[in-house]
């Protein structure tokens, strides 16, 4: 079976290893992995900043690129939710695009959910030695209702111990342009989150959204702490 990767702009430009890890896991499970070359972004940055027209332009491009894909797998809860939950709002006055959205959205899957619900794979044969904690990214948690899935996948990783933090469901403070419109508030939110991560004494924090991890890693580095940030795909690809 063939799956198309939508790696997201953040992974493409900043964390390409996350995309490679995702491809490796999917190939290991026997999927033929395809990467539509013309992909760019889902349009969320514009949509969340109050520019729906600009977001529509990007979203139209997304629909054009992935129109014929059987499955689209995305290493991000937030970008998945943009497509499956918010394109409807974006195209509410464009019946043709709305229909395309309705046809494509059920085939767009966040990575961990694809593994569990389509590939039916809980144990992907990964090995990672160490204690990690898991950060629930907001849009995955509250829009896609992803809570236990990534934890189930982590539980099957050899050598890995998952130690929950108190504030697993608290926002990391990224919030797209919020992080630069309100940098001090955003930074303070991240530091509170990191306090909670530190209490677990985990050596890494795992999430299914690279943008949260970019925020957390930025503050972790600024504070000089010995904590890594890892996308779930990176953990599942390691052996």
């Amino acid at each position, binding site marked *: 079976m063939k799956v198309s990767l939508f790696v997201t702009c953040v992974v493409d430009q900043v964390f390409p290893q996350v995309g490679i890890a995702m491809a490796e896991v999917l190939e290991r499970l026997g999927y033929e992995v395809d990467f539509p070359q013309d992909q760019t972004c889902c349009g969320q940055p514009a949509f969340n900043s109050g520019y729906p027209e600009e977001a529509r332009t990007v979203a139209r491009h997304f629909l054009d690129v992935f129109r014929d894909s059987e499955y689209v797998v995305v290493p991000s809860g937030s970008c998945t939710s943009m497509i499956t939950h918010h394109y409807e709002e974006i195209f509410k006055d464009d019946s043709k695009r709305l229909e395309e959205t309705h046809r494509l959205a059920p085939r767009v899957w966040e990575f961990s959910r694809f593994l569990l619900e389509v590939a039916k794979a809980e144990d992907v044969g990964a090995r990672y030695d160490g204690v990690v904690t898991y950060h629930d990214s907001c849009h995955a948690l509250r829009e896609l209702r992803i809570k236990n899935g990534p934890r189930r996948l982590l539980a099957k990783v050899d050598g890995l111990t998952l130690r929950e933090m108190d504030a697993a469901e608290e926002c990391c403070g990224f919030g797209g*342009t919020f992080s630069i419109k309100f940098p001090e508030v955003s930074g303070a939110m991240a530091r509170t989150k990191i306090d909670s991560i530190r209490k677990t004494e985990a050596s890494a924090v795992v999430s299914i959204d690279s943008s949260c991890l970019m925020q957390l890693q930025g503050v972790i580095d600024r504070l000089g702490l010995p904590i890594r940030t890892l996308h779930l795909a990176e953990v599942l690809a390691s052996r």
Partner: protein
Amino acid sequence: MTGAPSETIKQTLDDPRLQLAIYTASGRLMDHRATAVSAGALPEYQDLRTQANLIKKHTIENLDYYLEQLEANVLAHGGQVIFCKDGEEVADFVLGLAKKNDARLIVKSKSMTSEEIHFNERLEHHHLEAVETDLGEYILQLAHQRPYHIVAPALHMTRYDVADVFTKRLGVEKEVVPENQTKIARAVLREKFLQADIGVTGANFLIADSGAVVVVENEGNARLSSSTPKIHIAVAGIEKLIPRAQDLAVFLDLLGRSATGQPLTVYTSFLSGPRRGEEVDGPDQFYLVLLDNGRTKLLTDPEKRQSLYCIRCGACLNHCPVYRKIGGHNYPWVYSGPIGAIITPQFHSITEDGWLPFASSLCGACAEVCPVKIEIPKLLLKLRSEVTEAKRRQGAGGLERLAFQMFAWVMAHPKIYLLAGRMGALLAPLVPPVGPLKKWASQRTLPRPAKQSFHQLWAARKSK
């Protein structure tokens, strides 16, 4: 268009004592709520939320009908209903009534609606004294501060802060034990209740089919305010309506639990009209003041009018990671937190306080705990686009708009996108952090673009 008060926000963030007070107090309210609405304690919680949402939706969509029904029933009980456009009209009414009845002293129970129109200040100018009788509100009145939180107005103050306020304003010895502080306030306030000519309360619910005002509280001061003085005035926003007395069961199940984790508050008062001939308690005169103050502006928009479903439980504040950092006083109006961020620009104007809808990471914690299911993040997004549109009309925000126009153009042209991404990666080490990069770098290290994009890695992988 005014911007965010970045200086006072920084002061709040840099005050460790205040940060601890906000985080601890809101965290406690979160914990209490979580226990109170857990599957074991309230298995029907999600159904109640859906029901509450539908009742409010129905009421707001038929507001004219229910307002008339309410008015007729209040009149039938011997009370009067006064419709007021704004705070000035409320003040005019109260001043006229006070003059007619030779009133000097007003006791007040907690009411955000009265805070919203600066009730006390308006009357003070005319030498009418209005005394807050809710403990938190009384402390704030003495300290000359506005509420920090919808249900816990003095959430940001510790008992030591309260001790200082009492010493300074009441001339008492320093007292840091909360129980004793309460006794000090009680002694002062009991006299005020006995001397007061008018009692003012808010209203948590207005019941159309029975013409009743429902007030929930924990201290008994609202009951005293509404029954001891000869005149009772209830001040309420028009959106406080619910159709029937039986609907109240849904809302009382949700309000206390969402606010403080209480299954029911200590007092729930049903106030319908003045004392009848044979009754021993109650005021001689009863007035219900119904306030618009911007609310009717929301009615035309089917999406935005859900902002009027709010029952002021404060749960969205407690769960908001932004409120928990910046606290209540950095919001421009008395309504803070997520609900404040959506109703302030709507009740006032989108061109004022346009920063508010942007002061959110869109984490969605507010919507998850809202007992009436207001889609706060969705409304924030809608308001954001209205703000950028208003700025465009004013000829402002051009640079940001240009940036997003460029963003859209680049993202719709994959070859340009690839080129721009690689140029960014080449230039990143050379470019000094300015503009948005500088703002990012003020808190965090800058992520470096990868040496090779996924596009490049994938192409290399395939050619192997």
